[in-house]
């Protein structure tokens, strides 16, 4: 206890030095904590934003293959799908919030001699009641969607075409079998700029989209299952895959080679195989975003490298500072040793100082990081920010993983203690008589 008091007193005696060394540790831990918080939220925000855009966490696509080997995306009869998803929901106790049955095409919008490319999602607004709530309208709104040809486009698309709410535009597109077709839409609403996803943000009534795609009124192309949370996604996806596998033809998940994304593997599989009727692809948002996960892994590795570089620099500083401390206190050490302090106690004194320095720096660093993250999350970048996809409702968010944070603290403590260990050992080995007669 006396040693701890002594260590704390030594630290408070040299306030400037303690402040600078502790500040360096605090700065390092703050930077690393902010990076970790950002990376933690990065994948969650991207997943949630994609889930909103793609209208689901788990997806099922129906693929038919023509005699000539062409693949057509279509789901005619979804009774097996519906039964399977209900079975999975009951088994896992995860109730999907929404089921979205979408038909989609990419087309060229034509208005007053101007063109714009847009992917238009055909949605059933009567059942997808959450969708209008997520659309930030700049002008117009859902009212115009009561017309069959109603279309919702984003601001950049409307600007590019020079079109306003109420204007009628032509859309050149292809049917689900690839034949040429032309549709005529009326702009019902213009939504906020969704940044890099501007070209993905067109919505129309599924009935009309189906007509243009030459699909039947009850057909669609993909089923999106929107779950209450991201956490159950993989379990739900796997269970749905296994359940469907027993009922209908499903593209296997086993075809993927090592390190290959099985969504890509399923695509290649479809090209090689022949089948009759409909064969289903089951995949989750995590499968689609596996490349984003790779980015997260890179960011995690980068943050670890930054942590190590910062603390190697700090370690060198601590090592030198403790050498100076030892030199400054050489007579003090001699006196303490002369009045009975043991070698181990001298070593412990130095190590306690280093530990308190590290702990103080870590606590201050984490507090500063929390403050910085809190301030950053208050800034509203807006829904039209190019960073939209990594934001949550226009705000930056941070998510700290406790294990990661604890690991960082342990690394900092270990590095600081190892930096102080050599001067502490040298101080402990000092002969009291030599120390007492040393003149600084």
């Amino acid at each position: 206890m006396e040693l701890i008091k002594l260590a704390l007193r030594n630290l408070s005696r040299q306030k400037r030095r303690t402040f600078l060394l502790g500040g360096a540790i605090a700065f390092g831990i703050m930077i690393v904590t902010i990076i970790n918080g950002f990376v933690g939220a990065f994948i969650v925000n991207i997943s949630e934003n994609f889930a909103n855009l793609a209208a689901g966490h788990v997806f099922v696509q129906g693929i038919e293959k023509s005699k000539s080997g062409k693949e057509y995306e279509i789901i005619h009869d979804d009774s097996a799908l519906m039964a399977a998803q209900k079975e999975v929901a009951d088994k896992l106790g995860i109730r999907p919030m929404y089921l979205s049955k979408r038909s989609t095409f990419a087309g060229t919008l034509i208005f007053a001699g101007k063109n714009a490319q847009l992917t238009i999602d055909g949605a059933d607004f009567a059942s997808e009641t959450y969708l209008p709530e997520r659309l930030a309208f700049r002008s117009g709104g859902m009212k115009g969607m009561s017309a069959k040809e109603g279309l919702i486009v984003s601001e950049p698309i409307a600007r590019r075409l020079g079109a306003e709410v109420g204007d009628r535009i032509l859309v050149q597109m292809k049917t689900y079998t690839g034949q040429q077709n032309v549709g005529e839409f009326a702009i019902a609403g213009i939504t906020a700029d969704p940044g890099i996803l501007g070209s993905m943000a067109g919505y129309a009534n599924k009935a009309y989209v189906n007509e243009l795609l030459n699909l039947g009124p009850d057909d669609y192309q993909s089923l999106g299952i929107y779950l209450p949370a991201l956490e159950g996604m993989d379990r739900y996806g796997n269970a749905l895959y296994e359940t469907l596998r027993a009922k209908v033809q499903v593209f296997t998940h086993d075809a993927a080679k090592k390190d290959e994304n099985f969504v890509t593997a399923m695509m290649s599989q479809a090209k090689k195989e022949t089948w009759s009727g409909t064969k289903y692809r089951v995949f989750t948002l995590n499968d689609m975003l596996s490349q984003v996960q790779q980015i997260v892994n890179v960011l995690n590795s980068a943050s670890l490298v930054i942590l190590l570089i910062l603390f190697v620099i700090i370690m060198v500083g601590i090592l030198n500072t403790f050498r100076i401390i030892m030199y400054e206190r050489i007579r003090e050490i001699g006196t303490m040793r002369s009045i009975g302090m043991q070698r181990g106690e001298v070593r412990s004194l130095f190590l306690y100082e280093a530990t308190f320095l590290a702990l103080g720096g870590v606590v201050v660093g984490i507090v500063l990081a929390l403050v910085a993250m809190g301030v950053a999350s208050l800034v509203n970048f807006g829904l039209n920010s190019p960073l939209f996809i990594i934001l949550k409702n226009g705000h930056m968010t941070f998510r700290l993983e406790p294990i990661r944070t604890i690991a960082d603290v342990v690394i900092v403590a270990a590095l600081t203690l190892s930096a102080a260990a050599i001067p502490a050992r040298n101080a402990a080995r000092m002969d009291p008589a030599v120390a007492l007669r040393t003149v600084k």
Partner: protein
Amino acid sequence: MNSARIRRMLFSVFIGILAAAASAEGASPGGATAANTDFKAMLKAVDELSDFGKRDYSAVYDIVSEEPGEKPSTTQIKLFRRDEHDQIVILIRKPEAKKGQGYLKIDENVWFYDPESGNYSHSTMKENINDSQAKNSDFKKYTLASDFDVVKAEEGKLGVFETWVLTLKANNVEVSYQNIRMTVRRDKPIPLKEEDYSINGKPMRTVYYLPTYVQAGDKLVPAKLKMVDEVNKGKQSVLTLSDVYVGKLDDKYFQKTFLESAQ
């Protein structure tokens, strides 16, 4: 009167003059009526015009595309065809940025080759070539008789020619356009105009077979085609044929390695 309208008028006059010049014997309906004409046989005859059978065919097409407010752009392709095995190779030679890209069709598979990535990707015969109005399918032999049913046949006149205007509906989904109105000379099964419609009946493209022809073996191949985009007003492409060869082509042209080394 705007320049586009003047161009269209001049173009109509041009068609008439060329049509008159090309038809030395003049148009002759020959007493045929819709009731006594076998239109399926007529479509077969049109198909045969472009079918080189056991011989191979190669040619160069210069495609000049116009778009309102932009300078005309030129795409040049070299076409290799082996109709006997339904094989096609389309190699893009111009513009420089697209040079070396190409399509290869073997049986029902169509691949697109991009020299930049060095990779093949699956494609279709419905793709447009370098943003022009021409599609890959425009360069294959006609298969009108097998792909379409004649829904209606009307008598008509285009320039000096007496014509049949055949309304065709596709009987499969492999063709680019579900509905076509084909204007064919009544005296010979030579197409003069092709109007392509969307699946919901909207006009999408009109192809004018300008009545100048190049002798390719025992076949007459249209030397010039004009393709007008009916959806994007003012967009059109004119295709001019040259360097025609009919005979035996080396097998190497119909293999992937050819496109890979062509650049």
